[in-house]
């Protein structure tokens, strides 16, 4: 009988718990989380927009823990791990012993060192349900929202609060919205969609200072242009950082992220890490895959974990869908092919016969193969002329034994 403990109930933690239970039907599995409710970070905007309840942004069944016979210690913060005595300390001096431990603490929002921003009680992140609840409260008192950052998190928050009639200003340091995923044209499409909903963008502009009231709340943001923008509260969406404090406090090797080997083991014996806290990737599918791989290794099934390909995302704001894979920013020495119609915009970046970037705005049906081609560096030099019409038929193969598909290249 082994005792498995998982810190964190996000994508990696929950997927690990699920997989551990599959391989170890009788062992003890415990999940400790700060959160009261399991929830999908990627659906927080649905909650904030009042489209869904807390229960409806759960990505597993409501009775997940009971059904799988997993202990869930909710609303508790882990303070320290004794890696020699193999014990996790949490809350007010509670402790739980483990044989194998998984750290899946995710990442937290980051506040740049702008005067007053780190101390002001009306500056919020948008990462966890607790953040969304705080924003919800603040919104009840004032509807002028200042969002720092126009990446997916910032636009998620904006789209949710737009629906509820907020007056939104979004400041973005880069010259266009969603700078990591878009090019200038795709960004302009999204910018217009948000502007039509009443959002105001300040591009190439940063927040440099603030005016605060007697309680330290920011009442005006001062921009790099000198302009003052009045607001009731601020949402920080200018990037995230892996949550590594527990590792640092416990002597587990970590710098910007928790260091893991090719089996997701940390520097401490029988302690594994998965998800955003490893800094390997910041997208949901990779966190799920890491949780699964770590769990298999913890259960004694040798599962090497290949480094994920992190440059990939999809977005869907107000029905405008986009898929962006690869490096849209690296175009030197590359062929850049563009296809544009009134309803579609596609761009392919081909470097040395290989696809290195692909962006599609509009109907993104059946586009999954482009990620596969990019991350595996598959040669497409003879298929350039139909780069926007590629399908799996161009790489068709069948595994005769089980009937699954295989790539033929």
């Amino acid at each position, binding site marked *: 009988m082994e005792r498995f403990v998982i810190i964190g109930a996000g994508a990696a933690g929950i997927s690990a718990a699920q997989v551990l239970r599959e391989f170890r039907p009788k062992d003890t599995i415990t999940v400790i989380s700060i959160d009261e409710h399991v929830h999908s970070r*990627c659906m927080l905007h649905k909650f904030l927009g009042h489209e869904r309840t807390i229960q409806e942004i759960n990505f597993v069944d409501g009775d997940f823990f009971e059904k799988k016979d997993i202990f869930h210690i909710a609303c508790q913060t882990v303070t320290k791990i004794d890696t020699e005595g193999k014990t996790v300390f949490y809350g007010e001096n509670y402790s739980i012993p483990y044989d194998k431990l998984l750290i899946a603490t995710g990442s937290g929002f980051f506040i740049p060192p702008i005067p007053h921003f780190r101390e002001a009680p009306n500056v919020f992140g948008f990462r966890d349900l607790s953040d969304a609840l705080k924003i919800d409260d603040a919104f009840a008192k004032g509807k002028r929202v200042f969002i720092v950052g126009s990446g997916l998190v910032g636009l998620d928050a904006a789209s949710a609060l737009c629906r509820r009639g907020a007056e939104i200003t979004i400041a973005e340091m880069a010259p266009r919205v969603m700078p990591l995923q878009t090019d200038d044209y795709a960004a302009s499409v999204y910018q217009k969609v948000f502007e039509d909903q009443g959002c105001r963008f300040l591009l190439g502009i940063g927040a440099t200072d603030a005016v605060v009231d007697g309680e330290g709340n920011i009442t005006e943001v001062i921009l790099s242009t000198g302009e003052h923008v009045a607001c009731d509260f601020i949402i920080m969406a200018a990037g995230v950082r892996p949550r590594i404090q527990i590792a640092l406090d416990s002597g587990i090797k970590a710098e910007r992220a928790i260091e893991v080997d090719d089996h997701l083991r940390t520097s401490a014996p029988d302690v594994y890490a998965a998800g955003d806290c490893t800094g390997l990737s910041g997208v949901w*599918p990779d966190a799920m895959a890491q949780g699964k791989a770590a769990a298999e290794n913890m259960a004694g099934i040798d599962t090497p974990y290949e480094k994920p390909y992190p440059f990939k995302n999809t977005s869907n704001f107000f029905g405008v869908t986009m*898929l962006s894979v690869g490096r849209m920013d690296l175009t030197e020495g590359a062929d850049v092919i563009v296809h544009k119609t009134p309803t579609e915009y596609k761009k392919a970046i081909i470097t040395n016969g290989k696809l290195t970037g692909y962006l599609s705005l509009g109907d993104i049906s059946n586009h999954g*193969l482009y990620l*596969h081609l990019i991350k595996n560096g598959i040669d497409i030099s003879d298929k350039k002329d139909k780069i926007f019409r590629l399908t799996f*038929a161009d790489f068709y193969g069948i595994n005769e034994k*089980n*009937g*699954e598909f295989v790539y033929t290249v």
Partner: protein
Amino acid sequence: MKRIFIDPAKCDGCKNCTLACMASHQDMTPRKGTLAEIRQAMYALDLTDPAAQSRNRIISDGRGGYSPIFCRHCDIPDCAGACMSGALEKNMETGLVEYNGDKCAACYMCVMNCRYGVPAVTPDRKRMVKCDFCQHLEEGPACVRACPKKAIEVREV
């Protein structure tokens, strides 16, 4: 578990499977029926309905060969592994990758993650579309029954 096995050599690109799939998901196909009845249902198909989306695709190579692309309900499904809402799940008993549209948040991570390009988006961008093995039909997938060449057939894996 069951899977639709494909023999591309037998496919002659008639796309009966495609029409049968569309009809089945417009509720045109009788729950039980003879092959003739299944085929008859295709004539009632409303092609102007944007929701008439086929879950399968037959791609011509331009030289008389065809590549049928049908959801494999993979042993390790990348679509379900990417799903952040819990809408896509592998049913370990039936082996099917099942989709619950009520849970779906239309983030389209599944579209991005399926290396075979099976998942599609709906015209309203609120749902995804993939093969559901015609679980609403008692006699199994409409596409298989509509194929005159037996290029696709349900087999136990």
